[in-house]
């Protein structure tokens, strides 16, 4: 594989992969926050 093909592959798949993985993580975080909502006593603790 020549350097140009290698570089473009890394740019497209690497950047795309990073973006896609982080997007997946945002969905996971939303699910986590929904699944584990703040309980009333936690709110009082922090307040």
């Amino acid at each position: 594989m020549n350097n140009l093909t290698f570089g473009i592959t890394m740019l497209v798949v690497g950047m795309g992969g990073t973006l896609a993985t982080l997007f997946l993580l945002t969905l996971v975080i939303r699910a986590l926050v929904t699944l584990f909502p703040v309980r009333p006593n936690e709110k009082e603790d922090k307040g």
Partner: protein
Amino acid sequence: MSGAILSALGALLEGVRFLFAHGGPNVIMIAVACAMFWLAIAKRVEPLLLLPIAFGCLLVNLPLSEVMAPGGVLKTLYDFGIGNELFPLLIFVGIGSMTDFTPLLANPRLLLFGAAGQLGIFITLLLALGLGFSKEEAVSVAAIGACDGPTVIFVSNMFAGMNKIPTAMVGALAVAAYSYMALVPVIQPPIMRLLTTRKEREVQMPSPKGKVSKAALIAFPVIVTAITGIIAPQGLPLMGMIMLGNFMKVSGVVPRLANAAENEIANIATLFLGLAIGGTMAGNQFLTRETLMVFGLGLAAITIDTVGGILLGKLWYLLSGGKVNPLVGAAGISAYPMAARLVQNEGQRWNKRNYLLMHAMAANTGGQIGSVMAAAIMLSLLKGLGVI
């Protein structure tokens, strides 16, 4: 008798003789070490790391020094903790325990800034290949765009261990990475002002809504580790260690371990890592054209990271009808919490009622995850492409 005394004195002057005969590069590197001492002490530029690096650099460049010879103190430290990537990973445990992911979990969409802030890695990779670096060297240089010293050392040292890049290059990369991380407050603000309009910089963002439960904070590091392990297993040591540190902290049941990770372990690893990296800066191997190019490309990497984050911020500003301040995008790098504070200061400079800190913190912790994820994906791609 007098002959013996003269030859003994001659032995003592051997170092001076060497310095005059072949010591040019050593003298230059001793001057570099002194410059790093000045930066660390007088300017407080990353003193925790720059000071031991500079001292290691001084030790290895003194004439006839054997600190990096087999059995030498710095060589032993190098083999013990850099050659097998142990020290950067221990530092990651400490970083994890110092990081608070609460703002990110309260506002998860800002995690995407952490992806845009890695653009510099991949563009710099292309630039380095264009300048004639080998694939492994280019990947190591590009890792500076992660704005994360331990990541750079982990990646470059992996290649040094395979004899794919010179060991001296690890030192150059580490110094470049830490120097530019320290220079983020100098590099970023002009780019922020250049790429945004005053109207954009003045945008106020409402405080993130909702709190985050302890259960979600505890589950987060475990799930991120699992996802990284499945998608990019080559980077699992990096993400696993940072998440271990955070897991210990948020679990609340091992405060002694979390404190040790944040303090003693991180401090000892930082000292040994700095000294051993300084030991790779021997003048005759360090002073090359490639070192200068590494520093140039490192600056390009961090600049492009900032540009990537701000451009995504501008896009978001347009799509949201002006509700997102594009400055927040500049925090999508791994320099935590420096980049977030810069965004807060820059926002308040243009609008005194602007309070961007929590949004910037979310983007900044997203940048930490993004940088490690980008490095992990890069390593897994290299494995997939048969480069490593």
